[in-house]
C-alpha cells in the first residue's frame, strides 16, 4: 500500500509558534506604545484647547466690551464651526452664559454637547480657571473652560474640548502606514522559525537516521560517524551513536590484535590456521585491521538558507528603491555588479575572502543607506549589489563543494522569501520616516546577520575541518561536538 505524504507538522507548529509570539509581542507593544502616546499627547492637547479658548475669549470680550450682548453677536455660527473644521484636534467649541445655558457652539451636535455642559464639573472648572486653568475630563472629553468677563463680572464661559479617542484614531490611521513593516516582521519570524527548526531538529534527526541506516547496511569494514552534534537530547543521541561505533571498532581492534598474538604464540600450525580463520571472518574490520571510522563533515541544506535569502532581499530592495525613484538606467550597473559578485565568489575568490568583503561592503552600504537613490553615490548601490552577488555566489560555491542538492522548489522558495523581504523592507523605508526607516533596515540586516552567522562559521571553518577529517583518518568517537 502506498504511504500518503505526511504533513510537516513540526515545522508548521514551529512557524505558528513564532507567528503567535510575534503577533502577541507586537500587539502588547502597540498597546503600551499607544497608551504612552496618549498620555504624552494629552498635556499637549489640553494646552492647545486652552490656547484656543483664550483666543475665543479675546474675540468675544472685544464684542462684549463694545456693548453687544453675548447671545446676539453676529456671525457666531460660522466662527464657531470653523474652529473644529480647521483644527482636527478640537472636538467642540461652546459659549454659554453665566448660568451655563448654551448660546453658541461648533463641532459635535447639541444632543451630545448639552449633557457634557450640564456636568457640574465643567462649571466649576470654568469658575476656577480665573485662578488656575485646568482641563476637566467628562465622558472621554477633556474640556478647558474660561470665564468671559465684563467689568469684572462673569457673563459667560468659553469651553473648548479635545478627545483622547480622536488621538487614538489618528495614531491608528498613521500606524496603518506600517503595514508593510508588519508583513515583513511576520515573514521574518516565519522564516527564522523554519530555519531554526530545520537547522536545530529536522536536519540532525535526518542525519542520525542516515547514519543508522548506513551502519545497518555496512559490511563492517567502515563506519560513518556524525561530524557535528546538536545540543540537547538529539545531540546526546548522536554522541551515543558515535561512542557506540567507536567502542565496537575498539573491541574489533582488540580482538584482532589478540588473535594475532595467539596465532604467533601457538606451536601447532592447525590451531594457528584456525585462529587466523576466526580473525579473518570476524565480520568486523577488513584485511587492513579494525573498522575504519569516517567522520562526516555534515554540510547541510540550511547552510544555504541565510546567504541566499539575504542576497535575494538585498537585490530586491535595491530594485524596489530604484523603481520608486524612477531611475531605470541606474539598474544596469547594479545588475552588472551583482553578476560580477556572483562570478567572483563562484570562480575567483576564496570563500573566506568573499565573505569578509561582503561584510565590509554591507556595513559601508548600510551606513549610507539613508540616502535616496537620487542622491546616493552610485558606489553605494554598486557595493550593495556586489555584496548580494558575493553572498549568492558564496552560497552556491559552498553547495557545489559539499555536494548539497537543493530542489528547484526549495531554491525558488528561498529566493521568493528573500525577494519579498527586500520588497517589504524597501516599501517600509519609503513609507516611514527617516530614523525609523534606518532602524527598519537595521532590523532586516540584524535578522540577516543572525541567519548568516552559522553559515559564516561553517564557510570559514569548513576547509580545515574537512582536511582534518579526511577519509582514512581515524576519528575519535564523540570527540567533537559542534
Amino acid at each position: 500500500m502506498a504511504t500518503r505524504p505526511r504533513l510537516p507538522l513540526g515545522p508548521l507548529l514551529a512557524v505558528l509558534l513564532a507567528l503567535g509570539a510575534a503577533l502577541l509581542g507586537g500587539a502588547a507593544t502597540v498597546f503600551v506604545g499607544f497608551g504612552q502616546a496618549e498620555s504624552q499627547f494629552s498635556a499637549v492637547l489640553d494646552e492647545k484647547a486652552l490656547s484656543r479658548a483664550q483666543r475665543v475669549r479675546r474675540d468675544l470680550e472685544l464684542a462684549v466690551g463694545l456693548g453687544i450682548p453675548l447671545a446676539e453677536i453676529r456671525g457666531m455660527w460660522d466662527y464657531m464651526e470653523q474652529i473644529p473644521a480647521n483644527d482636527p484636534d478640537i472636538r467642540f467649541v461652546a459659549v454659554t452664559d453665566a448660568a451655563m445655558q448654551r448660546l453658541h457652539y461648533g463641532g459635535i451636535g447639541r444632543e451630545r454637547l448639552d449633557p457634557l455642559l450640564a456636568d457640574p464639573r465643567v462649571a466649576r472648572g470654568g469658575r476656577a480657571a480665573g485662578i488656575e486653568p485646568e482641563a476637566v475630563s467628562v465622558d472621554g472629553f477633556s474640556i478647558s473652560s474660561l470665564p468671559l468677563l465684563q467689568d469684572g463680572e462673569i457673563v459667560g464661559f468659553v469651553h473648548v474640548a479635545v478627545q483622547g479617542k480622536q488621538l487614538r484614531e489618528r495614531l491608528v490611521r498613521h500606524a496603518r502606514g506600517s503595514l508593510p513593516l508588519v508583513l515583513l516582521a511576520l515573514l521574518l519570524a516565519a522564516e527564522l522559525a523554519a530555519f531554526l527548526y530545520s537547522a536545530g531538529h529536522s536536519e540532525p534527526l535526518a542525519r542520525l537516521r542516515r547514519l543508522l541506516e548506513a551502519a545497518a547496511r555496512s559490511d563492517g569494514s567502515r563506519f560513518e560517524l556524525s561530524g557535528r552534534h546538536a545540543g540537547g537530547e538529539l545531540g546526546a543521541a548522536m554522541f551515543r551513536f558515535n561512542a557506540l561505533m567507536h567502542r565496537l571498532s575498539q573491541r574489533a581492534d582488540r580482538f584482532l590484535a589478540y588473535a594475532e598474538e595467539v596465532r604467533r604464540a601457538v606451536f601447532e600450525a592447525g590451531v594457528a590456521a584456525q585462529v587466523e580463520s576466526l580473525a579473518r571472518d570476524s565480520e568486523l574490520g577488513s584485511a587492513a585491521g579494525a573498522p575504519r571510522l569516517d567522520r562526516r563533515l555534515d554540510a547541510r541544506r540550511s547552510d544555504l538558507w541565510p546567504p541566499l535569502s539575504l542576497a535575494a532581499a538585498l537585490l530586491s530592495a535595491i530594485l524596489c528603491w530604484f523603481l520608486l525613484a524612477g531611475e531605470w538606467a541606474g539598474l544596469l550597473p547594479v545588475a552588472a555588479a551583482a553578476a560580477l559578485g556572483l562570478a567572483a565568489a563562484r570562480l575567483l575568490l576564496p570563500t573566506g575572502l568573499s565573505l569578509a568583503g561582503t561584510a565590509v561592503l554591507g556595513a559601508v552600504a548600510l551606513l549610507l543607506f539613508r540616502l535616496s537613490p537620487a542622491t546616493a553615490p552610485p558606489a553605494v548601490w554598486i557595493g550593495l549589489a556586489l555584496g548580494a552577488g558575493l553572498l549568492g555566489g558564496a552560497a552556491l560555491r559552498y553547495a557545489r563543494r559539499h555536494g548539497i542538492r537543493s530542489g528547484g522548489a526549495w531554491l525558488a522558495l528561498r529566493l521568493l522569501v528573500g525577494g519579498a523581504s527586500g520588497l517589504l523592507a524597501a516599501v517600509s523605508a519609503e513609507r516611514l520616516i527617516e530614523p525609523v526607516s534606518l532602524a527598519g533596515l537595521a532590523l532586516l540586516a540584524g535578522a540577516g546577520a543572525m541567519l548568516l552567522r552559522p553559515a559564516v562559521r561553517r564557510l570559514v571553518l569548513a576547509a580545515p575541518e574537512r582536511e582534518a577529517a579526511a577519509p582514512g583518518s581515524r576519528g575519535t568517537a564523540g570527540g567533537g561536538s559542534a
Partner: protein
Amino acid sequence: MSDASPSSATRPAPAAAGGGGPGLRGLLLAIAVAGLLVGTVAAVLGSLAAFERTLMTTVQSRLSEVATEVARNIENGLQAGVVLEQQRRLLAVLADERTQAPDLSAIRVNDERGRILFSTNEAEIGEAAPLAAAEMPNGDAPAQWFRADGARISLGLRLTGLFGEPLGSVTVTLPADTVDDQRARYAISLALGAVAIVAAGALLAALLLALLPLPGAARLEGLRRRLDTLYERAGLARPQPSAAPDPAQPAALPDSLARFEAWLDRRVGSLGEREAEVRRLDETA
C-alpha cells in the same frame, strides 16, 4: 598473554557530552523568543512612526493656529485700510502669541521680497528673512508650507491682499529640540516597555514549555536511552538478545533503530563467539 575479553564491559557510558545543550524545549523557546523579538521590534518601529507623524501633525496645526491668527489680524488691518508695512499693532499681536506659546522661537511677517517687516525679535526687523529661496512665497507657492529640518520646524502662510495680490508671508518657527525631546521621551519609554514585554514573554514561554509535556522530546530521550543500552551491550562478552522496545517509552526513528539494533546484535554476537573460541584455543594450546 593479553586478554581480548572486553575490559570495558562494565565501564559506564561516557558522560552526556553533546547533550548539554538546550534540546527541543530550548529550540522551541528560541523560536518563540525570536518571533517575540521580531514582532516587538516591528511594533516599536511602527509605533514610533505613528507617534512621529501624529506629533508632526499636532505641531503643524499648532503653528498653523498661530500663523492663521496673525494673518487674520493682518486681514482686519487691511480691511481697515492700513497697509501691511504700517500695521504697527502687529508687534503687540506677535508678542501676545509668543506669550501664549513660549516655546516658539520666532514669529515673523515678511513682505513679498523676503524682508522682515515684523518679528517677535525686533532686532531682525528690516533684515532678509532667514529662509531658503525655495521657501520664499511667490505666485506659485502653496498657501501654506511646512518644513522640518535639522534645527527648526517652520510653518509659513502666504499673505494676499484684498484683491489677491501677493503681500508676503507669516512664518512661525519652533526649535526642533522641543519635538526631539518629546520623541526621545517616547522612544525611551517605548523601548523600556518593549524590553519588559520581551522579557516577560520569554519567561512565560519558558514556563509553559517547562510544564507542558512534549512528546517529541520524550521520543528523542527514548532514542538516547536505547543507544545507551546498545552502547552497554556492545561491551558485553556475552551479549544478550535485544528485548522488545517498551511501548511506554517510544523512541524516535523506530524503524531505522530496529534495523540497526538487529545488525549490531548479529555483529556483536558473532564477535563474542569468536573471542570465546580464540580464548579456548589459546588455553588449549
